[in-house]
């Protein structure tokens, strides 16, 4: 056993070596590497499998009560400063290792089918492998700096993978948006980290927590500062786990290939935020205001995500908003102090949401046979319908995932969501209500998705809808943007087909935990909480109250069933016309359809604003600063050249503003 712990560093290092090997191959011997595609993908999957086996070994020994194992080496030093890097293996790490490696392993098998005809097949495996490595490195990190390092690395992998199809304009924009939005979060995380280091002189979670408590208790550090640091750190998870208001990147990130959406943007990376909150728990716990903010952010995100998902027609976008909403649940749970419940939902969600995404990939794969390789057509649910007949495995596994996410007894999502809601009810009834309502919305939009995709008549050959969709997307991207794609709108078949075995198998394998994994956390015998609980927390042996459980579970199931019934009435039995409903409440419909206008507002203020500011500063640099130092500024001002700029007035005005701003900064800092 000890040997397993000594060599645990191999878990992240092996995939890294695999990726390096492929990367060097692609750069130096491109043709040869690409012709060995099957061999190389087998090699990468084999490595992932090895990492998975090692992770299970560690998990097994942790279940049997092996103590926490830490190993570090000195990574950097300067004078009295020493920074350690290494790994820590405790219950939480071992659980995350298992979740990440299993999902990664299955996604890699699935990829073989999904990406079979893609010219970037080998490159995709290299990226997958480097992502697995970074994510595994993240979960074994023993200190804040190392978490930050891998935090950024998974962000980079996400950038590379979202922009995988680099010839697509939308993908190019999405990957940049994902990276920059995440940098905003990292900015907070870095500031928080520096603040905590300044206050406590350590990057170690436990030590920071202890010292922070001492310092605030003795008054050496004001509670306000402690709160500020905690909130800054929380900005990291806000971006990474797609919480409002930094969630805007996640839906766009669906431009990446679907296996990535399943692995990164559903199961693992986006859950890293929740993981970080769990790791930072000793610190956050002692800052009640920060905990409240975390809980509220989570609740708002859960609700916002669900309301937007109601009207999405792109199957992947719908799932993306659903992911955002479920992440909101987890964050809310963490904020309410339900440490174990939040992580429990992280685990169940990782399995069922990965499966749902892979199902959507399977659907898209099937649809491409009919409508061609244009995502505008292949991913739109208005063109689907009746797919259960053509692809039964996908349909039934999707249904299992659907029941799990809706929280139907006894699927996995029921247990985790019910635990969150139960604890929320005790802690804060308002948040409970938001979560409860969201559960209803979830059931509605998920079954809407299921009915539109798998039931009814197949609409894929309806040229009228196709034309409408193409026109709509053409308008959205500007005229002419779709020209080159239009050639591809014809598939080679009239009906979709079930996906090959290597895609169907991972779906079936993921269906098992999606159904059953919740059984480890039944309230009357909660093995999960016994294994994963907040550091320092004592598990109180509260007697299990059947009545209370029945009331809470009954309420949750009731709202979920209501959601399902409404969805059935609207999209299966067609008793209620969704369009009429939309016309009746145009404001609400538009709000949901336009994603609460977050993107438009950000675009207007940040994107356009920063571009304009940059141009102006550059102009100033060119005309004023350069001119002043060159002394030619004076000359131009005196000559007619200068008058031209004076007349337009704009350049001068901007110059004035920028200089006033710079001067202002200098003054502010010299006074304080």
């Amino acid at each position, binding site marked *: 056993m000890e040997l397993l712990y000594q060599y645990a560093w191999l878990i992240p290092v092996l995939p890294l070596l695999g990726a390096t090997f492929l990367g060097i191959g692609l750069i*130096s011997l491109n043709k040869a590497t690409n012709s060995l595609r099957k061999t190389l993908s087998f090699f990468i999957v084999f490595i992932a499998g090895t990492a998975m086996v090692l992770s299970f070994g560690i998990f097994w020994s942790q279940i049997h009560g092996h103590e926490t194992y830490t190993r570090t080496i000195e990574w950097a030093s300067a004078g009295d400063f020493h920074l350690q890097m290494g790994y820590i293996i405790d219950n939480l790490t071992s659980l995350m290792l298992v979740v990440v490696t299993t999902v990664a392993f299955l996604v890699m098998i699935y990829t073989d089918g999904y990406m079979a005809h893609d010219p970037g097949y080998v490159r995709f495996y290299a990226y997958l492998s480097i992502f697995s490595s970074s994510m595994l490195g993240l979960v074994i990190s023993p200190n804040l700096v190392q978490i930050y390092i891998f935090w950024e*690395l998974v962000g980079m992998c996400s950038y590379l993978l979202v922009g995988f199809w680099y010839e697509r*304009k939308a993908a190019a924009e999405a990957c940049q948006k994902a990276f920059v939005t995440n940098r905003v979060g990292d900015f907070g995380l*870095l500031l928080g980290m520096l603040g905590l280091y300044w*206050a406590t002189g350590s990057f170690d979670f436990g030590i920071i927590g202890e010292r922070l408590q001492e310092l605030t208790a003795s008054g050496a550090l004001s509670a306000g500062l402690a709160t500020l640091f905690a909130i800054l750190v929380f900005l990291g998870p806000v971006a990474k786990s797609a919480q409002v208001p930094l969630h805007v990147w996640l839906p766009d990130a669906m431009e990446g290939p679907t296996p990535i959406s399943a692995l990164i943007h559903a199961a693992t990376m986006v859950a890293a935020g929740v993981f970080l909150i769990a790791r930072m728990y000793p610190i956050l716990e002692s800052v009640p205001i920060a905990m409240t903010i975390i809980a509220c952010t989570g609740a708002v995100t859960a609700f916002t995500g669900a309301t937007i998902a109601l009207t999405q027609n792109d199957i992947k976008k719908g799932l993306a908003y659903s992911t955002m909403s479920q992440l909101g649940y987890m964050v809310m749970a963490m904020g309410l102090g339900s440490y174990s419940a939040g992580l429990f939902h992280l685990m169940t969600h990782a399995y069922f949401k990965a499966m749902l995404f892979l199902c959507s990939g399977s659907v898209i794969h099937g649809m491409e046979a009919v409508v061609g390789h244009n995502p505008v057509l292949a991913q739109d649910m208005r063109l689907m319908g009746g797919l259960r007949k053509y692809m039964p495995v996908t349909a039934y596994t999707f249904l299992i995932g659907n029941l799990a996410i809706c929280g139907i007894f006894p699927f996995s999502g029921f247990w985790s969501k019910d635990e969150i809601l139960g604890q929320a009810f005790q802690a804060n009834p308002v948040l409970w209500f938001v979560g409860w309502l969201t559960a209803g919305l979830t059931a509605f939009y998920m079954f809407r998705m299921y009915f539109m995709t798998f039931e009814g008549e197949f609409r894929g050959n309806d040229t009228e809808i196709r034309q409408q969709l193409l026109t709509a997307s053409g308008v959205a991207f500007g005229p002419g943007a779709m020209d080159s794609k239009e050639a591809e709108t014809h598939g080679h078949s009239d009906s979709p087909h079930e996906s090959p075995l290597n895609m169907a198998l991972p779906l079936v394998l993921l269906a098992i935990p999606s159904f059953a994994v919740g059984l480890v956390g039944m309230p009357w015998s909660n093995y999960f909480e016994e294994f994963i609980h907040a550091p320092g927390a004592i598990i109180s042996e509260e007697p299990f109250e059947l009545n209370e459980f029945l009331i809470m579970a009954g309420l949750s199931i009731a709202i979920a069933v209501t959601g399902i019934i409404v969805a059935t009435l609207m999209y299966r039995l067609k008793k209620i016309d969704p369009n009429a409903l939309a016309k009746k409440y145009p404001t609400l419909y538009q709000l949901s359809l336009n994603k609460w206008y977050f993107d438009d507002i950000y675009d207007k203020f940040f994107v356009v604003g*920063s571009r304009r500011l*940059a141009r102006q500063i*550059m102009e100033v640099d060119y005309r004023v600063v350069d001119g002043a130092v060159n002394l030619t500024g004076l000359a131009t001002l005196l000559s007619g050249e200068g008058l031209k700029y004076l007349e337009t007035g704009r350049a001068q005005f901007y110059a004035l503003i920028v200089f006033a701003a710079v001067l202002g900064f200098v003054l502010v800092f010299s006074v304080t």
Partner: protein
Amino acid sequence: MESVQIPWLTAITLLPLLAALPIPIIPDKEGKTVRWYALYVALADLALMVYGFWENYSVKSHQFQLAETYSWMPQLGLSWSLGVDGLSMPLIFLSGLITTLAILASWKVNHKPRLYYFLVLVLYSAQIGVFAAQDILLFFLMWEIELVPVYLLISIWGGKKRLYAATKFILYTALASIFILVSGLALAFYGDNFTFNIAELGMKDYPLALELLAYVGFLIAFGVKLPIFPLHTWLPDAHSQASAPISMILAGVLLKMGGYALIRFNIETLPHAHIKFAPLLVALGVINIIYGAFTAFGQTNLKRRLASSSISHMGFVLIGIASFTDLGMNGAVLQMISHGLIAAALFFLSGTAYDRTHTLMMDEMGGMAQKMPKTFALFTAGSMASLALPGMSGFVGELSIFLGIATSDVYSQTFKVGIIFLTSVGLILTPIYLLSMLREVFYGEANTKLKLEGFGIDAQPREIFITACLLIPIIGIGLYPKVATNTYDVKTIQVAEKMRSVFPVIVEKQENNLNASLLSTWQSPGLIAPKIK
């Protein structure tokens, strides 16, 4: 032992210069022999460096090592005095590496190749001379010698506006370097013992007024080189007009001369004045970072964007050296090394793109990834390094500087908070302009108007090799920073110690870092420097 010692530094410094002399008479057709000759000379010098430092340099000492002194012109007091310590050794090695790679990158130069390689080799010597000089007059001489080849290299082999750029470069740097001479002479003549030796200059006691004046002089001279806002405007012109190999040297090595000299003269020689000026340096550093990032984002020319990003990144060096901490100093030197490698890689890659597109305007490019996937991959790697992705050297340098300024105990809390906040805003801006650059150049549908020609389309083995030579140390330092910091940290600790020792109150080490508040009696209230009692 002393008598048989080999003059390593003299050999390293003079080899390229002496080897450049016979270039005009080498029998050669079409410049092919000359380029091999230049490459061999550069490699030989690099090998000499590796061997010389490996055998004779001890990383455990902060003293000048491999020191040699010969009287050169006694009537002037000028002596040929060389030596290296932790500050100069890594930078000399960096110059060797970058210049050698730049020669390899110049493989396709066919316009006046003899003159070209002659100038590059002279530049090689001058760079090493600047870093190794132990005599301020010699330092000045080397500093001036280096300007001439750069001027010619830009004005003959540069882009369309090369004459304007070269003239601007020479005017800025030559005028500014007069300040080195003036300040240097003032320090040399002060007091009883007249000396040009840098170490001895550092041991003299100057009146504060003289220190301050000399400090300002040095600051202007080195501020142009680094560059510091608002003396930076020559840089986007020079860097974008120079051919790619020369941009590699400009961004990779010449900017570091500014940072190196700031540490060597402004801090080591004039520590009392440094206390007064440090808050100003920090503020200028922040302006550099944010202003540079915004101007970079505003540029539509690929190389101008990269050039402006250099301004932004060098701002970190200023903050590091003014933080008065071991970590900050350490980070500043690391940032210089790291930026040298990263900027060289990016400028080289922009050159490989230019060789095929014949344009640097980003709006005329687009969709190039489909034709040049390898170049795209390497460019992405370089950009990631530049935006301080962990696992690459830029991150370690910037993190050390952040930690340095955060734990610095000489500034008031408000000042620190403001500085750290604004500096981190730079972290958000950097990916914006770098990733937009990648998006505009490589992503999207292929730009049909763009004609890619020459060299075969994608990156050739030679080009991949050059980039790899830069990326490997970048990643190596990122993975395990001690490979770089171990070579110099004894020296930076000593410099930090010296800076701090000038403060009248000696900082007492306390268990936690909150002691900053205990020292408020001499804390710097913003731009007004710490009071000296």
